[in-house]
């Protein structure tokens, strides 16, 4: 008994799907690791920063420099002109300078939030691509077995 020849078009499609799913899975792994690398690189300049709006009336409030804007947070600010000094490990940054120069300071929290989002998307992509690769592979095998059992000519 001879086996029936498989449809070349179907074979090509399944092969292409499997090839691209494994390529995209590898890409997802690369994107995941790259996002971590990029976030680590960006965070290397991260500092605990207190934004201060310089205020000539600060002495009347019992302060030295001015009005604190929010609580100290982890920021990535690289412009040395923005810094006013350092107190107990907290860097003081001139809010007026930031505003005058349209600098919206990047928060370390934001960098890692984006990294987690990208990594999660990459992980979902990786799982989907591996699932697709596996399912198409199994369908391919099942199809091959079926083709093998079917008589070619009645």
């Amino acid at each position, binding site marked *: 008994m001879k086996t029936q020849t498989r449809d070349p078009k179907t074979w090509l499609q399944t092969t292409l799907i499997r090839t691209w799913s494994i390529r995209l899975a590898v890409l997802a792994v690369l994107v995941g690791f790259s996002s971590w690398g990029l976030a680590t690189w960006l965070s290397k300049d991260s500092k605990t920063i207190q934004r201060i709006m310089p205020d000539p009336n600060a002495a009347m*409030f019992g302060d030295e420099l001015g009005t604190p804007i929010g609580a100290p947070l982890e920021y990535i600010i690289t412009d040395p002109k923005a810094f006013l000094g350092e107190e107990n490990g907290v860097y003081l940054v001139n809010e007026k300078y930031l505003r005058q120069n349209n600098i919206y300071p990047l928060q370390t929290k934001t960098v890692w939030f984006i990294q987690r989002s990208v990594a999660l998307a990459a992980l979902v992509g990786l799982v989907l691509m591996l699932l697709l690769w596996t399912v198409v592979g199994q369908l391919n095998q099942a199809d091959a077995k079926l083709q093998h059992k079917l008589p070619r000519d009645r």
Partner: protein
Amino acid sequence: MKKVFFATALVSTTLAVGAVWAANTAFSIVPTINDGASPNTLTVESDTDFESFTGITNKISGTIQFDKAAKTGSGLIIVDGSSIDTGNTLRNQHMKSADWMNFEKFPEIRFQTTSVKNTTADNYEVRGNLTLRGMTKSIVTTARVRYSDAGFAQQTQNIKGNIVALSTKFTIKLSDFGIKAPAVEINRVSDNLTISLRVLASDK
């Protein structure tokens, strides 16, 4: 004997009236100083899962009654909430909308003290009613009130009169003021909002 009694009563009454006068020294919030800038600041701080942000405004008015000797007082502070700038136009628009602070309908944030108690040096425990989004809730906070005499304020900043500098910081829950935005309910935006206030008030 009666004369002595009446004389004593008259002196006591005069002293008491004097004390009441001293207790009622009114300080108005200074809108601008010599360079045209406002010396007053209100900042709000909030956390989202993406970033922490602050909003700032200088549009603050009101009066403070302060008795330097008795270390007590009261006050009414009014803030134009619709002028709070978070540094992001879209976020400012959201903040003003009915789902959030509803500044389009209720632009004012008001704080009226109900009791003020000196704790240490320039520090006070302040109880009062905070009105936001048209809803009033009682809050308790600590405040620092520093008094500067006219000479100091005039020399340093050309501000007339004696000055009180009030600074306070407290945290409220958005949900207490009826904010039920989905982002708060699923914790993408913190339910806590920290408010810091610094104002200068003059008695002239």
